[in-house]
């Protein structure tokens, strides 16, 4: 694999999975905030569905969107199949329940008094919500990064919705799959290690950036 192709695959991985993690978190974190903040009828069912959704295999999500996006599917007109956008969309649906579940656990960690205290000091519901997020910011970050890790390491969706098209949608994991299919196991391992190194770098960057001086861990 030549350097330029490799760099491109890294870029595709980072872009699609980074976007997927951000967009999924933008939905999942508020959802988790809502769920963690109150008890309502049917909440257990929502949590159960979320927990079950985590078991959706990538191929199934891939198939689902494939049949939506394929030329003769309902959204075929968008021409999104085999694009990075399709990969991102599929990955969002893959990691959503993971980020919801992780964030929910993270937010339950916040003392219930935090919300209440914000309210007593004059905060609106929204502001109080922000406070709860702020109090849990480190474990929430871990939740988002876990979603990112899941997205960047998955191959089924990238394969089915991206198509592993060289120079367009080939990312690190589909490259690994290709090398493995070729019997070039060594290349596969090297690419895998590269993926881990990149993820490590991102984790360090993001975490040290946000952790700040209160040194919480």
């Amino acid at each position, binding site marked *: 694999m030549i350097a330029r192709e490799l760099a491109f695959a890294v870029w595709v991985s980072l872009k699609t999975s980074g976007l997927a993690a951000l967009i999924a978190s933008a939905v999942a974190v508020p959802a988790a905030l809502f769920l963690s903040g109150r008890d309502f009828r049917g909440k257990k069912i929502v949590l159960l569905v979320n927990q079950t959704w985590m078991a959706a295999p990538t191929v199934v999500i891939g198939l689902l969107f494939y049949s939506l996006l*394929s030329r003769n599917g309902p959204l075929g007109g968008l021409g999104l199949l085999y694009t990075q956008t399709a990969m991102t969309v599929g990955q969002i649906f893959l990691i959503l329940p993971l980020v919801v579940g992780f964030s929910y656990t993270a937010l339950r960690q916040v003392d219930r008094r935090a919300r209440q205290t914000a309210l007593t000091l004059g905060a609106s519901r929204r502001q109080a919500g922000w406070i709860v997020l702020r109090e849990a910011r480190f474990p929430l970050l871990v939740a988002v990064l876990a979603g990112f890790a899941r997205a960047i390491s998955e191959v089924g969706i990238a394969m089915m919705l991206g198509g592993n098209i060289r120079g367009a949608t080939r990312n690190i994991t589909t490259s690994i799959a*290709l090398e493995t299919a070729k*019997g070039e196991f060594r290349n596969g391992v090297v690419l895998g290690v590269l993926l881990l190194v990149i993820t490590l770098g991102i984790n360090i960057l993001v975490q040290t950036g946000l952790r700040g001086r209160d040194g919480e861990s």
Partner: protein
Amino acid sequence: EDTPPNMAPAGAGRTLMLATTTSVDATGLLDVLADAFKADSGITLKWIAVGTGAALKQARDGNADVVIVHARKLEEQFLRDGFGVNRRVIARNYFMIVGPPEDPAGVASCRSAAEALGRIRSSGASFVSRGDNSGTHTRELELWALAGGKPEAAYLETGQGMAETLRVAAERRAYTLTDTATFYGLRGLAGLKPVSENAPEFENIYAVIAVDPARVPTARYGEAMSFIAFLTSPRGQRLIGTFQGQAGRPLFEPLAAVAGVDLAK
């Protein structure tokens, strides 16, 4: 190793591990062959379906006792390196070029594969390649060489198996090279039809190779040879020839029994 109680065959002692190219498995042929082989010899056939390249790698690593592949060059390398013995051709089918039903490049009228590819290149129509060093991909590259080189643009590499590559071609209204078995075995490819077939350079030959116990001591050579004998026997050949899979038409042409076709081919 666990098998469910109702699936454990009596006296299931001897097993054979096969590494195979995907088309033989995905069509369902191996299911038929394994059952018959079991009935004949009492040997349980287990197999892993991977690409030709990976199949040979598995064999080199000692994880398979026998391989079924279809990439002449890779096979020769495997034999030269001393890993394989007793290569026998067992079946063939044909490659063909498939493309959009309206055939924008006008390939249908071409008589040879090289001519057809040349048309595609000059018309600017898209072509999807597997790009995975598989048998099909190797053959495709050979054909492009005959046709004077790959196109610069409108040439997509999927790096995936045949089925996935066919789907990409259907989505993108592009041409691609496929083996007949996979194409006819696959459903939902309304967007593609064969546009060039039956040329002699399209022949696709499947071979079985035993792993040499001299090189890989753990290899179960006896069982491998039984399997090879079974495949090349009239019964085995008949099963291959009559197998129809989902497509409702024969997918493989038995070859071992055909006079004059053997190792030398």
